């Protein structure tokens, strides 16, 4: 039997309440909420928010295939340190997550690490090649409820239409990486004045927006549910806002880096700032933040994309896109001041739990009987990122030297502590 845990002195943030009460955990569940609770282990939460654990809709854990960059264990530890209790594992592994064998492997590796729940997503098309559908029914039967070819969008409109129709029959959600590939050949950064100066091929906003528009219209005729990954432009937000007004079953996410970093950073020639979709303008950031506040955007997702040092020591055009996110997401979002603390819990826990369909065990109100997946964070503390101290196997974070605000103090996964006082327990 594990020891009972009491979280003392924090503010418990639930959907319809904020209460300065203690919370007791026993046998993997929230046992009691109240004053002066007694237990065997005490976790101090003074000045902290106590909320349901975060759920990341977008983590590249790199296993199987690129264990040099990250493993499911190291990525899970990074997630726990970031306050996460569930991570949706993106399917661009090698081999890709387009078979039950790989899906089961990823889930089992997650269970072995036992630091978060690893929720495998499945490919929409076989091998993420965009040519024929992956065995979605088999994968759905193996527990997959989110399908994506993330890293590239499904280019063929007819195939995407069929994928949505098929998904509707299975009751699963498709998640699109919106990028019309013909418009982004060789692209390194946002198409902007900086990119004109640098002589680099640009990644124009319209390459994202055309596919957002196409897929909204495909949802309209198929009735399937659809999630938009990492939206990055003003017009994308406007398109999704209008589609939601029409009542379409659409959700959308934005990353912490698209809320905080801009295209000018590429003029440092440092590939750590290369990401797909690319960093955009202040103009776009303002629109994304407005989308967070009015509910157009449902979730903040990391697009955690570890790369080994040697891969990021290449030129801007050759280096792979992507940056770390799990350990810095909360600190970046709160430092940006884009929304209230309560909204952050909704965007990082309640809403993504629902989109990933793990809301029977994650993103729950913290009441007696709920599964104890909990994050305790100090929303005011300022800190700086030290890449050498990160749990991720890679160090490609763009936030070195930046001041972040808000840090995870304790994380509890299935009733057991994974992080105590900012230190990973295993």
């Amino acid at each position, binding site marked *: 039997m594990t020891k009972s845990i009491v979280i003392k002195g924090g503010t418990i943030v639930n959907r319809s309440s904020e209460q300065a009460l203690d919370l007791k955990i026993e046998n993997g569940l929230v046992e009691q909420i109240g004053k002066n609770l007694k237990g065997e282990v005490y976790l101090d939460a003074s000045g902290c928010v106590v909320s349901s654990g975060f759920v990341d809709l977008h983590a590249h854990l790199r296993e199987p295939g690129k264990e040099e960059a990250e493993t499911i264990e190291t990525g899970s530890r990074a997630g726990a340190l970031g306050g996460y209790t569930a991570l949706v594992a993106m399917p661009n592994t090698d081999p890709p997550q387009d078979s039950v064998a790989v899906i089961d492997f990823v889930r089992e590796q997650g269970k072995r690490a036992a630091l978060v729940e690893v929720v495998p997503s499945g490919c929409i098309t076989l091998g993420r090649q965009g040519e024929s559908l992956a065995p979605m029914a088999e994968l759905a039967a193996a527990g997959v409820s989110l399908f994506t070819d993330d890293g590239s969008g499904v280019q063929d409109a007819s195939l995407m239409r069929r994928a949505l129709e098929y998904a509707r029959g299975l009751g699963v959600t498709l998640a699109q990486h919106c990028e019309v590939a013909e418009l982004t050949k060789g692209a*390194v950064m946002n*198409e*902007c*004045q900086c*990119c*004109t*100066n*640098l*002589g*680099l091929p*640009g990644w*124009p906003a319209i390459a994202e927006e055309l596919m957002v528009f196409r897929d909204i219209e495909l949802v309209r005729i198929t009735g399937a549910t659809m999630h938009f990954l990492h939206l990055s432009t003003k017009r994308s937000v406007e398109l999704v806002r209008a589609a939601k007004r029409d009542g379409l079953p659409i959700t959308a996410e934005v990353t912490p880096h698209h809320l905080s970093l801009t295209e000018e950073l590429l003029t440092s*020639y440092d590939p750590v700032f290369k990401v797909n979709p690319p960093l955009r303008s202040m103009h776009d950031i303002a629109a994304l933040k407005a989308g967070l506040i009015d509910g157009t955007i449902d979730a903040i997702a990391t697009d955690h994309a570890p790369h080994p040092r*040697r891969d990021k*020591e*290449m*030129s*801007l*055009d*050759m280096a792979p896109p992507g940056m770390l996110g799990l350990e810095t997401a909360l600190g970046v979002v709160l430092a940006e001041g884009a929304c209230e603390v309560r909204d952050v819990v909704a965007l990082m826990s309640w809403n993504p739990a629902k989109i990933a369909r793990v809301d029977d065990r994650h993103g729950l109100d913290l009441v007696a009987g709920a599964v104890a997946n909990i994050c305790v964070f100090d929303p005011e503390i300022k800190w700086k990122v030290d890449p050498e101290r990160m749990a991720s196997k890679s160090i490609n974070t763009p936030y070195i030297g930046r001041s972040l605000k808000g840090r995870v103090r304790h994380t509890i996964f299935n009733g057991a502590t994974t992080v105590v006082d900012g230190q990973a327990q295993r």
Partner: protein
Amino acid sequence: MKHLLAIDELGLDGLNALLNLTDHMVEINQRPVPKVPALRGRTVASLFFEDSTRTRLSFETAAKRLSADTMTFNVSTSSVNKGESLRDTVATITDMGVDAFVVRHKSVGIPWQISEWTKASIINAGDGAHQHPTQALVDCYTIREATHAKSFSGMHMVIVGDIKHSRVARSNIQAFSMLGAAVTLVAPPTLLPPDVSHWPVSVSHNLDDVLPQTDVLYMLRLQSERMAQGHVPTLREYSEQYGLTQKRVMNLQAQAIVMHPGPMNRGVEMQIDPSDVKNSLIHRQVANGVAVRMAVLFDLLGSGSNLAGQA
């Protein structure tokens, strides 16, 4: 000056200082023995990851005339083809004792990245479509030599062709503007960057309109692969609209200068032999290439050594 990476990083004073120093180098090159001991004991490594004839040879000649030792890194026979990373390659050559790297690479920003990995000086000999600062220095020096003007104020420079993919254009736009010239870019919209509203230039899509007001006509090379990429329908159509023909030469002002950074595409942007153009400075551009690069190497690596001595 530690590195020469881009014209805007050099600044107007740095630009003028190098142009003035080039006068001395031209004088050295006219001596019976065109060689001085100024950089004896210094080593200059050429790191060329892209084909080059004139730039690489003129740097190596410049280094030798200043008595520096030279090292040529040949990509096709190097460990890069065995999977060695660029950073490791640079570290290895640095360990051999190198004072300067002359770098050309197809990727934008490589010279800046290398400058973080070594203590040696870096000279950008062309990075992608971004910068080619020594070419701009050569061009400014050549115009200065021909016009005897130290400021380009009141002059109208017209750059014609594939601006979008041209590092020569990006460096020259900066250099010409810094020296006071008005700059007009002439190209079809597909060969211009999507947004140049923040550049100190005018834009035209009609060469014939611009020719009568041109002081320096700077023709850029059009690479044939631009057709496959859909930037122009055919080379013939491009050539008709933007190529330099005998008829267009006749429409230039009498004193107007014609330049080209080479290598030329005869029959595309150059429909006539440059020797048929009275005021062509194309051969002077090549000749001044050595002197300008001597000035750059001396500025970066010299330590008060006497340029008057004999090697």
